[in-house]
C-alpha cells in the first residue's frame, strides 16, 4: 500500500529521475530492440487485420501476402448473414455500459470512506472487500447461478450486470482506495470548514480529483466486462442473451472454413475497445501505474 500512495504522487507531485547512461550506439540498439519487440507483440493484430480484409480465394492462395484487392466485404457479410453478431453487439453494449457506470459510482464512494477512516470497523470492511480478490469465480458460480435463476434473472442482461459488477467490486475498491490515499486532505478540510456537507464535499471536491483513477477504472472495467467469457458462459444460457465472446466461440466453431469472415467478426468486436483504449491511453497507462491496480 505504501507503494500505491507513493506512486499517486505522479499526479500530485514531481517524478523522480535517474541520470541516464549515455552512448549513441547503446541508444540505437535500444530503439531497434524495442521496435522488434513491438513488431512481435503486434503480429496477432496484423494477422487479424490481414485475414479480415482478404477475399476467400485470396486467403486460401497465400495467407500472409498483402491482399491483391483489400475488401471490406467480409465485414458487411458477417453483419448481414449472422444474426448473432447483432445480438451479441446489442447485449455486450447493454451490459458493459451499465456495469461500468454502476462500478464507477459505488466503488468511488466506498473507496473514499475506506481510504479516509482508519478505525477498526473500516479496516474490517476493507479486508472483507479485498478478500473477494482471492475468490475465483468458479467457487461461487453454482450458488450465484441458482440465486439469480430463482430471481428470474438468469439469461437476462440485468442478471449479468449485477453479477459482473458485484464480482468486480473487490478489485476496483482495492485500486481506487490506494489512489484516494494519495490525494491530499487539505481541500476536503477547507470545504468542511466552509460548511460544505458530506455529499457535496465528495461530489464537488473529491470526485473530480479522482478523475485519473476513475477513467482508468472505467476503461479497465469496460475491458473486463466486454471480454468476459467465464461469467457469461455460466449465466447467459439462451441464444438471445449471448454477449460477443459467446457469439464468437460459436461462430468460430461453425465457420472454420471461412476464416476471413471469422476474423472480420473478431475485428468488429475488437475495434470499439481499441478505439476506447487508444483515445484514453494517456489516462490508462498513468492510472494503472498510479493505482498498482489488481485486475
Amino acid at each position: 500500500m505504501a507503494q500505491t500512495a507513493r506512486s499517486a504522487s505522479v499526479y500530485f507531485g514531481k517524478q523522480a529521475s535517474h541520470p541516464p547512461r549515455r552512448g549513441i550506439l547503446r541508444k540505437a540498439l535500444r530503439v531497434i530492440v524495442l521496435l522488434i519487440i513491438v513488431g512481435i507483440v503486434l503480429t496477432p493484430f496484423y494477422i487479424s487485420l490481414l485475414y479480415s480484409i482478404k477475399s476467400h480465394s485470396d486467403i486460401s492462395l497465400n495467407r500472409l501476402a498483402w491482399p491483391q484487392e483489400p475488401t471490406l466485404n467480409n465485414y458487411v457479410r458477417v453483419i448481414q448473414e449472422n444474426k448473432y453478431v447483432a445480438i451479441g453487439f446489442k447485449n455486450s453494449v447493454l451490459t458493459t455500459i451499465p456495469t461500468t457506470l454502476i462500478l464507477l459510482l459505488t466503488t468511488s464512494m466506498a473507496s473514499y470512506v475506506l481510504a479516509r477512516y482508519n478505525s477498526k470497523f473500516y479496516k474490517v470492511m476493507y479486508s472483507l472487500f479485498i478478500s473477494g480478490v482471492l475468490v475465483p469465480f468458479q467457487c461461487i458460480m453454482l450458488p450465484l447461478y441458482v440465486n439469480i435463476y430463482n430471481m428470474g434473472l438468469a439469461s437476462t442482461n440485468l442478471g449479468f450486470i449485477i453479477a459482473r459488477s458485484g464480482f468486480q467490486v473487490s478489485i476496483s475498491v482495492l485500486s481506487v482506495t490506494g489512489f484516494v490515499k494519495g490525494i491530499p486532505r487539505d481541500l476536503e478540510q477547507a470545504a468542511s470548514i466552509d460548511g460544505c456537507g458530506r455529499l457535496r464535499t465528495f461530489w464537488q471536491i473529491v470526485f473530480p480529483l479522482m478523475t485519473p483513477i476513475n477513467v482508468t477504472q472505467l476503461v479497465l472495467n469496460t475491458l473486463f466486462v466486454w471480454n468476459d467469457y467465464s461469467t457469461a458462459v455460466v449465466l447467459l444460457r439462451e441464444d438471445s442473451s449471448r454477449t460477443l465472446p459467446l457469439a464468437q466461440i460459436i461462430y468460430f466453431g461453425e465457420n472454420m472454413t471461412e476464416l476471413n469472415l471469422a476474423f472480420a467478426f473478431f475485428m468488429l468486436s475488437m475495434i470499439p475497445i481499441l478505439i476506447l483504449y487508444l483515445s484514453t491511453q494517456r489516462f490508462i497507462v498513468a492510472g494503472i501505474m498510479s493505482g498498482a491496480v489488481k485486475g
Partner: protein
Amino acid sequence: MTAINPIRLDRKRKLTRYAIREHGGNILFMLPAFALFAFVVLVPFIQSIPVSFTDKKAIFAKQWNFVGLENYIKLLKSSSFQDSFLHTAHFTIVYILGANILGLALALMIWRSCRFNNVIRTLLFMPFTVSLVAATKVWSYVYTDVLMPLTGMPSPLGISSQVIYGLAAIAIWRDMGYCMLIYIAALQSIPGEYYEAARVEGANFWHEFKCITLPMIVPAITANVTLVLSWGLRCFDYSQMVINMKAAKTTAVFVYEYIFGNSRAGLGQAGAIILTLVLVILSNIVTTVLRKREVEV
C-alpha cells in the same frame, strides 16, 4: 461521588451525535458497493461451502445427502483432478515467470517518460484489450501460419506435451504489458540520488540492478506475482478454447464441467473450494516471503 460538569456532558453528547451522523453517512457511502459485493461474492461463497460436503447432483436437485469429506477424498485420489491441477500449476508457473521477467525487462528499457517511450508503452499494453477467447483463436493461426513457416515448429496447441507452453505464451503476450506498467511506476519512484551515488562508487549496470533496483521494487513484484498467480490459477478461457486437448484441461475447467456438464455439483464444488484454498494459501506465502524483503525508502 464525582461531580458532573454540565458543559463537559453537553460537549460529549454533541460529539456523539456528530459521530453517529458521520459514521451513518459513511455506512450509506459504502452500502451500494457492499450490497453488490455481498449478493455476488460473500453470500454465494458462504452458500458454496456446505454444497461441497454433499452428493448434490444436478444444479437444481432438491434432494441430496450429507457425505462429509467424501468429495474431497475422492477428488484428491482422482487422477483426472490431479492432472487438471498439475496442468494449472504448470501453466501458472510459466505464466508468472514469463509475464514478470519480460514485464520487468521491458520496464527497464522504457521506464523514462519521453514521447517515444510513451508510444511504445501504449503499443505493448494493447494485447491486454483483447478477449482471451479471441487471443487464443488468433494465436492458433499465428502458430500455424507464421511460426511454423519461419521456424519449422508445429503449433504447440496441437501437441499434448507443449500445449501448456503454447497457452502460457498467449497469456504472457496478453498480460506482460500490465506487469510492465506496474514495474515502470515502481522504477519511477526510486530516488535518482541512489544511482548517482552508486555511479560515483563505480557500480556497473548489474550492481545497480541487484543492489538498488531490485530491492526497491519488491512491492511491485509482490503486486504482480500475486496478481498473475490469481489469474493463472483460475485460468479458464484459454483452456476452454482448446477443449479437445486433454492435456490442457485446468482445474477451473474441471470444476465447470462437473457442475454444469456432468451433473455432479457436490464434487465440482469441492474442487472449487480446493482451488480457492490453494489460491489463498499461495498468495499468503508469496506476500509474506516478499514482504520480508521490502526496504523502506
